[in-house]
């Protein structure tokens, strides 16, 4: 059962990701992206990363995806033909992407990655939280400044001039 659900999540992620980049309807892409992000969250679960899965759902799906859909809505009238979108240079792009895929796969399969045994923790929230406030305090704080800047910038750019 776990095996099945694992492969199901994998399949869902990959297929919906393909739809994201191939679909002619922007809104389909967005929906497919939703499924992909769900899938990734599922993968996190299989990787014992419960906190990450939560964050993925909250921030990615609840935040970024919604933002994207807002963007689509703001820049397209639903009735407009614009909503359908086409791809360019699919041939070359596809070839390159496949090349990239092959290269990476070859490397992945040959490489002895750093591995160590571990037991499944009950939860990761505490660990992550501790790290954030100790070892990774500075990045954590830096990100806040980044967010502040991004806020100012986004507000500035999307604000209507008087």
């Amino acid at each position: 059962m776990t095996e099945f659900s694992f492969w199901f999540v994998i399949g869902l992620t990959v297929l919906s990701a393909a739809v994201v980049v191939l679909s002619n309807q922007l809104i389909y892409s967005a929906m497919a992206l939703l499924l992909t992000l769900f899938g990734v969250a599922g993968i996190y679960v299989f990787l014992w990363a419960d906190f990450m899965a939560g964050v993925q759902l909250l921030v990615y799906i609840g935040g970024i995806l919604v933002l994207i859909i807002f963007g689509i809505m703001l820049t397209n009238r639903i009735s407009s033909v614009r909503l359908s979108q086409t791809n360019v240079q699919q041939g070359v792009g596809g070839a390159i992407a496949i090349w990239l895929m092959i290269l990476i796969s070859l490397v992945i399969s040959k490489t002895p990655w750093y591995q160590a045994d571990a037991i499944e923790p009950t939860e990761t929230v505490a660990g992550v939280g501790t790290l954030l406030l100790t070892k990774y305090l500075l990045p954590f704080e830096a990100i806040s400044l980044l967010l502040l800047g991004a806020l100012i910038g986004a507000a500035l750019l999307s604000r209507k001039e008087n």
Partner: protein
Amino acid sequence: MENIFINYSLFILFLPLAAFVIQIFFGKRLPRQGDWVSVGAIIITLILSIAMFVAMLMGKDPNFKQEASFTWLDMGAFSIQLGFLVDNITVIMLLVVALISTCTHIFSLKYLEGDIRYSRYFAYLGLFTFSMNGIVLSNNLISMYMSWELVGVSSYLLIGHWFEKDSAANAAKKAFLTNRVGDIGFFIGIMLIYTAIGSFVFGDIFEGVSTGMISGTTLTLAGVGLFLGAMGKSSQFPLHIWLPDAMEGPTPVSALMHAATMVAAGVYLTIRIFPLLTPDALLIVAYVGGFTALFASTIAITQNDIKKVLAYSTVSQLGYMILAVGTGVYTAAFFHLVTHAMFKANLFYGSGSVIHSMHHALHEKHDHESDPQDMRNMGGFKDKMPITYWSMLVSTLAIAGVPLFSGFLSKDAILAGSLSFAQHHPEHFLLPVFGFGAAAITAFYMFRMMFMTFHGKPQMPELINDIHESPKEMTGPLVLLGTLSIAIWYILPHFNPISTHGSWFTSLVQPVTAVVPGNLTAHSIEEGAHHAHNLAMGISIGVAAFGIGLAFLMYLKKVLSAERWGNRAGFMYDWSLNKYYFDENYDKYLYQPTLRLANKIAWIDWELYDKYFINGFGRVTNWASSVAGKFDYNIIDQILVDGLGRITDNLGNILKKIQTGKLQNYLLYVTAGVIILMIIQSF
């Protein structure tokens, strides 16, 4: 007394130069355009020369020699000494130069009266005299070479005196360049000798040669190199082409430079370097001289321009002298140089006198078409211009080798030398043949000239009344030099009109044994010449008589038709008339190809190399199609950059196209770049 000769020489050398400087800067502002400055200077020079000459005569020392030198430049090991060498030959030569120069100055007073560049003319004469004396007085190759070139320049300036005429300008340039060809040889010779011996001074060089510091082929080459200089200056085949053209200069100049002195400098040089000439070199010298003597005389036969006849005659006579040096009798060569200077200068003055009066006559008739120098326009001037006629006749007899006249003595000595040489070396029988052949032809064409000019009926009768004898300034030199063409002056203190034996000349100018091992000694050459003397004299008188007789029959008595004989000679006549097409062939096979080469090179340099460099390979096709080679600046202008520019430019264009402005393209390139880098990396 010791340094008198040197001191006098200094004056002789620099007085004309001073005159030159004064004339150049102030000539136009002086009264009479300053001609008196030049004439005065040259007369002082003449007096000093005579004084030296007299002192030499009184000294009676055949080995008389004085040298003085100073360090001209010094870099430690490399230093150049310049200096004077005064010996008997020098003194005689100085006198000849001063004498002819004085005559020329005086002659020119009238001949160039009213010329727009009168003062300039006298200035150049001064420069010439200075440089000529420089050659004569040098005790080393460097100052000789320098004077040598300066002589060339003064010749250039004087030939080009009437530069408005293209022919004069061309002749001047031709003279200079042809001389330069010889000078290159001269310079190579100098370098060969200096490299081996390490000195430029004659004394050191001869010593070096005798001790074997230089020998064999190198020495031969050095000798031939130096002789090449002589060939240029003395107008020897095949560098003879400039001398006839040089007649474009004023006639007194022709008399001074292109007959008596400058062209003789080559002979003088060969005499000076005689001790170091190897037998092989001498043979070359002899053949060049002999051939030139005959060759030039065959051209002179058919010329109608009076000065051209004399010019080729000069070439031929110079050939004689060179032949004499080559056969070892270089004292005979020097003797002929002196006598030739007198009678040939005289002949030129005579021709100048004729031309001068022809010119005036034509001027009176407002005839600007007829050539005042063409003998076919003359005839019957004998009575109108008696002084000119008689003095010229004396000189003609001298050049033709008639006994009692100076030329007979010197020519005889040369012919005896060549005959004796052929007796020693029968395989070189051609040398005397050249000599005697030339003698016969010389006698013929000289009398042809005299007959056509002065005898017979006037060819342009309308002019004859305007033909007058020339003024005193011109006839004076004629008379003087005519007198000096008589044998008597050269045989003193003995009176043997057919032999110079025991004369002041032979007792003062004595042959020296060459320092090169293998050459005959001076004594044996002397002996041989002495033995051949009588035979040579006989033949010589015979051929002279034959030549004169033929001319008499053809041009005076008209028993033989010159025309018919001309036709009978066919192509030979044609060749002679056209100087064997030397100018044409040089032009066709030498000048034009050089110019074409130059144009091509310049074009390659600019149009091809430069553009090729700029434009990459594409321009090669352009080259193939535009051999005419026009300059097209627009093309250059269009080219943006330079050098690698064009390529860079094209590359830039291609790379620029990558920057499409389309974001997806960029992203694609980046990914492709990453992949390429990964692939590169993994190899």
